[in-house]
């Protein structure tokens, strides 16, 4: 009468090793396809302060807007569609909603509106949708392409969804919104009608003295390296001293002790083009620095977003992680690790 708990919750890790000079490298497409990024963490070994060009890019991430109690039918508003959705890319995500508890809404830059609804709400809305892949019978996904001709304002599909959201299922929630490349100006028609606030991504930078670090990340075991990187980012000690029971994380062998390392993290609604720019600047830093070093950039997606890579469904069983770590070296080589939790499709 015993229970087998040896089975850990499943998670997926996809590893890719290539070089930036390769024509077919897929870093750009991976970065583009994870639309909703919550946090970017950068680790630069043997660096005490970021050079000016890198620092300016870190501080120039686009600002985003938080609209309180936005009725979701406003995302179908004709003026909003014409000014923002059809021109440029809009990134929109419901705020303070949990993917495994509530209704979540996401507006993707390609014009897709995705609603993740529970059974009752879906039946009230009366619009076509599909079962959730991971929780059939509990969750439904309604995904519409707002740029498609069938969803043009005045069309049948458009009117049906609009009626559903206005009268049958009047959803209203806090919403994070950002527009690229236009910024707030393109969103002004929507913002002016509701209670909104502008936010800049929060940047935290710290220098870590005497950091134990793997001496050769290229040959290091992937799982232990990622575990060590996570411990550094979360400020958890990896000494594993016998007197402390708090953490038994260790730095993978063989290891060296760095005199200093710079850890920068930026939190907010971060659009992929800004992440792409940061990657180029980190590559420039690696080219210009005289030390033999490497850099690691981890981008975390929102845990409660209804989509992850390539508009695939994202769920939250015990951890809603969907992130990628880009380990860059001076010879333009890179290792890219894409990780997701249990209720997630395999990253591309």
């Amino acid at each position, binding site marked *: 009468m015993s229970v087998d*708990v040896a089975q850990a919750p499943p998670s997926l890790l996809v590893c890719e090793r290539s070089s930036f000079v390769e024509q077919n490298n897929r870093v750009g497409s991976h970065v583009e396809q994870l639309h909703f990024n919550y946090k970017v963490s950068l680790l630069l070994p043997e660096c005490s302060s970021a050079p000016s060009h890198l620092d300016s890019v870190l501080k120039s991430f686009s600002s985003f807007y938080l609209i309180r109690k936005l009725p979701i039918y406003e995302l179908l508003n004709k003026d909003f569609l014409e000014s923002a959705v059809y021109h440029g890319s809009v990134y929109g995500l419901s705020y303070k909603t949990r993917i495994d508890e509530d209704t979540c809404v996401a507006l993707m830059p390609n014009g897709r509106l995705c609603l993740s609804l529970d059974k009752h709400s879906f039946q009230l809305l009366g619009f076509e949708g599909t079962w959730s892949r991971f*929780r059939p019978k509990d969750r439904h996904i309604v995904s519409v392409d707002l740029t498609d001709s069938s969803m043009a304002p005045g069309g049948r599909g458009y009117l049906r969804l609009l009626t559903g959201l206005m009268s049958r299922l009047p959803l209203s929630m806090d919403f994070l919104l950002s527009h690229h490349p236009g910024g707030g100006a393109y969103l002004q028609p929507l913002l002016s009608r509701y209670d909104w606030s502008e936010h800049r991504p929060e940047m935290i930078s710290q220098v870590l003295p005497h950091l134990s670090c793997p001496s050769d990340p290229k040959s290091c075991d992937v799982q232990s390296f990622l575990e060590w990187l996570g411990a550094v980012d979360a400020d958890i000690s990896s000494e594993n001293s016998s007197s402390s029971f708090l953490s038994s994380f260790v730095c993978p062998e063989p290891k060296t002790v760095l005199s200093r390392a710079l850890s920068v993290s930026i939190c907010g609604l971060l659009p992929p083009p800004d992440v792409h720019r940061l990657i180029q600047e980190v590559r420039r830093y690696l080219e210009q620095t005289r030390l033999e070093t490497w850099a690691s950039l981890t981008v975390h997606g929102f845990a409660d977003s209804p989509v992850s890579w390539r508009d695939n469904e994202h769920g939250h069983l015990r951890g809603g992680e969907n992130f990628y770590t880009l380990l860059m070296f001076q010879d333009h080589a890179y290792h890219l690790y894409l990780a997701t939790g*249990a209720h997630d499709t395999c990253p591309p």
Partner: protein
Amino acid sequence: MSVFMDLNLTFTEDKSVLQRMIETAAQLGFSTVAINYMFEPKAKKKPQIPAPTPITELMDQLPVVQGRSRPIRVLNRLTLVMSDSFHFRSTAPEYRCFDLLAVQPTTEKLFHAACMVYDIDIICVSVTERLPFFFKRAPVNGAIDRGVVFEVSYSAAIRDSTMRRYTIANAISLIECCKGKSVMVSSAAEKALELRGPYDVTNLSLLFGLSDKDCKEAVSSTCRSVLLHGETRKTASGIIYTVKSCSKASDQQEAPPQSETCEAPPSKKQKSSVTE
């Protein structure tokens, strides 16, 4: 799935302890909690069931659930620890003040009656002692068919290591019998420190033999179905729903439309027109 709920917070006379428990539950991410009034009828005479304290008296403003924008919802629940069959009176008016009704049977006969007959929402599985009886498939399946849910509480396991053994052993034998369906895991917390977050409870339920999906359901969907079952029980199978009206005049105005729309035989219809 639905929101996370903890439907067993033990009631104490000390308001500050109760307030701290509700605040901690909101901080941990529970959207709904139920204050559990345990009652053990002792003597042969008619048991005096305590009336629940109104929620507005307990706390002026309910705290907002962490990570969401709504305040926590607090319900009242009654648990009867039964050692004899007359302890449960199905038509007692005192039960109406409570949103949920639970029973903790102490003998096999009572367990069978609770599963098959009694009009209740939750059957508590004892975790502080060795099970006095074995679970049989027939009554357990009967309870599942009726929508009655089995509850396992974990705070005894936090308090004491002997209780931990009993909790795990009893829970495993229940889940072997019911195959993980209709099981709810809640704390039976007496103070705020004994509460654990919903994902921690999910991990703990793995020890009881529940699958990944059932573990998460034990803190969310199953609790929601218990709440709906409680509402249905209070409203006579969902047919009549009584709402406190603001004035008597509106009551009288509502009466005639009902008699018009009902399918009554002609003799009865005539009678109602005479009284109008």
